[in-house]
Every structure is written in structure tokens, then in C-alpha cells.
């Protein structure tokens, strides 16, 4: 399978670049108009986010251009950095050291290797079954029983969210869809575009109209208005991109709807974990956004469902 840079892919990326140019222009205008201290801070944060988007889009485009292997490596690295942020926030003990080492250097690469060689059977059970059995065994062998179940559960959870779930995004490249062979890169782009634009649109609608908080204890920035506006507009965006996918417009709309709902759930759950640990972000590597895990939290939840929907229905 070869990912040729076909016309539709070029159009999608052209659209993204156009959007970024617009966002950069808007940010520049807003920065000139902002008067209050709080307004300036919001605009500065927005502009930092836009600048980071340029970098992320460039990296993503570069990896797509190198074909399926590029995408597998990119998402493998994302998993690595996300898992690193997750385990760093999780209080583990000395006895968990070996289990953590194996999570990073055996299970993570193996999961992505299975994506690369397209071995779906083992890909689907490696972490839910074999890591699930291995991690507690290794921790038990270390002999430390304090908060045992809690420690083991947290490592397993990190592997599930940061590695297993994220790996379903590049796994889209191993699906065989009649009449669409060699073009699966556009499926991956569809997923990433809808899920990330849904985040952006929820943020924008929330900033413009947000009044009623949806879950003030978990994520104070999420509002009902932002949620409804974001989900509806991202669903519309997904439907409008049907021409680049194997879907009909109504199918693209339904899939985009499912992606945005899962993305919202992901953002909410990962926020709840951050609240529990008393931090605002998982990291600080992406200016304006926080850590890698802050950026891909919605993707973690959306990727497996989108993968399964496409696998079963197309």
C-alpha cells in the first residue's frame, strides 16, 4: 500500500493551511485590538496555540508524506510522550520500575509493530490481555504489596489510553475498504481533522457564547454552548469532507458526530484525572496547549470507536 499524495489529500492540507493563515491573521488583528489585561492574556494564549498548530500540522504532513511507516512512527512517538506524561503524574513505587520499563520499551513498540505489519488479531488483544496479565505479575514479583491494585491499575490504564487507544489512529491504514485501497491516509486525516477541529470549535463557541458550565468541578472551561456549537459545527465540517472519504455525506456526518462525542468524553475524563492530581496540564512541551496528552486526550477516545465503525460498516 502506498500513500500517494493525491489531489484530495492536497486539498485537505491546503484547507488546513488556509485556515491557519486566517487564524494567524485574526490573532494578529485581535492582538492589536485587545485593551484589557485579561483580553490580552487570552489573545496571547490563542496566538501561542495557533503558532503551535503550524508546527503540529507541519509534523503531521511530513509524516503522512513518508507513507504508512511515517504515520506509525509519529503516533508511536505520541504514545511514548503521552505515556511518559501520564506515568510521571501517577504515583508509582520503586517496585513498579521494571513493569514501567517493559511498558515503555516492549509493549509500546510491539503494539506499533503490530500496526505496521497489520496483524489485527494480536493488535486488538496485546495490551487488554497480555499487558494486563504481565504488569501485575512483574509488580508482584517485586514483592511490594502496598496499594498494589491501585498501582497496577494505573499503569494498565496508562497503557490503555496512551498506547492502545492512540494506536487505533494509524491502524486505520491497515483497513481494507473496497474501492479505497491506498487512500486510507485520508481516513486518518478525516479523524484527526474532525477531532481537533471539534476541540477548537468547542473552544471558540465557548469563548463567544459560553454561559452555562457543563462540569464545573472537572473542566471549568467547558460550557453547554461550547459543547453544542462545537459538536454541531464539527459534525457539519465532517459531512462537508465526505468527498475525501469512502462515506456518503450522511455517513460522514454520523461518523463525525460520533468522533466529536467521544472527543468530548476524552477531554472530560483526562481533565478529571488532572484535577485529581492537582495539575492544570500534563506537560508543557506544546506552547499554549500544555503537554502532548492535553492535545490528544480527545483523540484517545475517538480513535478506537472511529476505527471500529469503519471496520464493521465499510
Amino acid at each position, binding site marked *: 500500500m502506498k500513500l500517494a499524495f493525491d489531489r484530495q489529500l492536497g486539498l485537505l492540507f491546503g484547507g488546513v493551511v488556509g485556515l491557519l493563515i486566517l487564524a494567524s491573521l485574526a490573532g494578529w488583528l485581535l492582538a492589536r485590538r485587545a485593551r484589557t489585561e485579561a483580553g490580552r492574556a487570552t489573545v496571547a494564549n490563542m496566538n501561542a496555540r495557533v503558532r503551535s498548530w503550524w508546527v503540529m500540522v507541519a509534523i503531521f504532513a511530513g509524516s503522512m508524506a513518508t507513507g504508512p511507516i511515517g504515520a506509525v512512527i509519529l503516533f508511536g512517538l505520541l504514545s511514548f510522550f503521552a505515556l*511518559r*506524561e501520564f506515568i510521571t503524574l501517577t504515583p508509582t513505587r520503586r517496585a513498579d520500575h521494571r513493569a514501567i520499563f517493559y511498558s*515503555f520499551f516492549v509493549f509500546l513498540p510491539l503494539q506499533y509493530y503490530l500496526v505496521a505489519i497489520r496483524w489485527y488479531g494480536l493488535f486488538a488483544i496485546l495490551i487488554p490481555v497480555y499487558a494486563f496479565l504481565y504488569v501485575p505479575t512483574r509488580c508482584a514479583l517485586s514483592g511490594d504489596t502496598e496499594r498494589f491494585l491501585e498501582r497496577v491499575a494505573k499503569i494498565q490504564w496508562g497503557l490503555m489510553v496512551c498506547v492502545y487507544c492512540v494506536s487505533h489512529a494509524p491502524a486505520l491504514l491497515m483497513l481494507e475498504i473496497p474501492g479505497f485501497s491506498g487512500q486510507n491516509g485520508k481516513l486518518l486525516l478525516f479523524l484527526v481533522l474532525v477531532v481537533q477541529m471539534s476541540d477548537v470549535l468547542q473552544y471558540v463557541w465557548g469563548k463567544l457564547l459560553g454561559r452555562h458550565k457543563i462540569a464545573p468541578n472537572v473542566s471549568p472551561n467547558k460550557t453547554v454552548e461550547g459543547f453544542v456549537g462545537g459538536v454541531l459545527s464539527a459534525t457539519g465540517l465532517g459531512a462537508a469532507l465526505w468527498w475525501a472519504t469512502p462515506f456518503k455525506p450522511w455517513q460522514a456526518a454520523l461518523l463525525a458526530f460520533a468522533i466529536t462525542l467521544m472527543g468530548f468524553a476524552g477531554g472530560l475524563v483526562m481533565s478529571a484525572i488532572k484535577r485529581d492530581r492537582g495539575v492544570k496540564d500534563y506537560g508543557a512541551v506544546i506552547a499554549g496547549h500544555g503537554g502532548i496528552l492535553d492535545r490528544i486526550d480527545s483523540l484517545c477516545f475517538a480513535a478506537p470507536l472511529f476505527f471500529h465503525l469503519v471496520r464493521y460498516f465499510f
Partner: protein
Amino acid sequence: MIDSLVSGLAWLVTGAQARWVGAGPSAAQRIYFANHSSHLDFVVIWSCLPREIRARTRPVAGRDYWERGWLRRKLSRDVFRAVLIDRGGAGQGADHAARTEAARRTVEATAAALGSFESLILFPEGTRGDGSNVAPFKSGLYHLCALRPDVELVPVWLDNLFRILPKGEILPAPLLGSVTFGPPLRFDPTEPRDAFLARARAALLELKPA
């Protein structure tokens, strides 16, 4: 070349970024002193320093560890230019006077290594802890400062490194660590030894994230 490779590797394994609190990097002669819980400790501090300062900063390390094996000898001599010192062992079994004499020679050798433009990295606890607390400082730091009161004393807090490479492990868990450089301390020749050591330790603990 090798020095970029080593610092790049240290960054990959620990993701450690330098945070400077109260003072920035400086080419002034300094003694960086840090809490010690992992073999990664000095490599990470060393890697976090700007390149030109790194080239003039030497770690103080135990001879018994760094002279074992070809790779360690090569790294400590040619890459880190470590100041190797004899730890405790030299004086064991000997009488008090001989031990004091050995300790004095070690401090003098370390002070000599400062020369007129080098800086040092050292771990005043003397040995690696388990990361849960900071042991009382050995008196070597005091005697070193008494010989070289002109050198700035910079506390460096290392966070999370004991989780990345704990004592007794050779394989790292690549979690995120951090390195916090604090404001320099002044040496006061009238201050008693124990008060000075307690003050230095408190300045280090001050940098620990809540």
C-alpha cells in the same frame, strides 16, 4: 560531538528541562550542589547547563565507581572531565588522624580542580538516597567553601530522577524529570560549620516542588 550525544540522550531519557529560579546561568565560577538519588543526577545537571558553561563544569564523583570498566573511565576522563575522589573507603580501619588527613587531601584536591575558571557539580549527601528525603550534608562542602569563599554556591533540586533510574537498576523508565537551579548562596567565614551546612541544605529543600 560525544558531549552533544550524551546530553541529547540524557534529555531523551529524562525530558529534563532547566528551570532557573532567582538567578540565570552564569560563566562565574560556581559550585552546583544537588540532592542525590540516581546515577543520572550529574549527567542531567551537566546536560542542562548551556554548552559553553558545560565545557567548564566538572562533576565531583567517586573514584571507586568511575574507574571501573573502559566506558566509565573514558566518559569520566574525556567527556565529563570528572574530579575523582576517594570516598570513605580510603580511611576505613585507619585511626582518626589518618582519616582526617585523607579527608583534608580530598578537599584540597577538589579545591585545586576549581582552578581559576572551572565550576564543580557535587552531591554533599555523599551517597545516593532513595529519593524520599535529603540526608544531612557531609562537611566536605564547608571545608571546600572555606578554601574558596569567592566561588558562588548554587543549590540544584533534581526532581523525579530516582523514579527514572533508581539505585540498583540499570534500565531507565523514561519519565519526566526536572532540574531547578536556585539563587547562589554566600559563604560567611564567621558562620559555624553545622549552621552553614544546615543553611545550604535548607536552600536546596526550598526548591523542592510542593
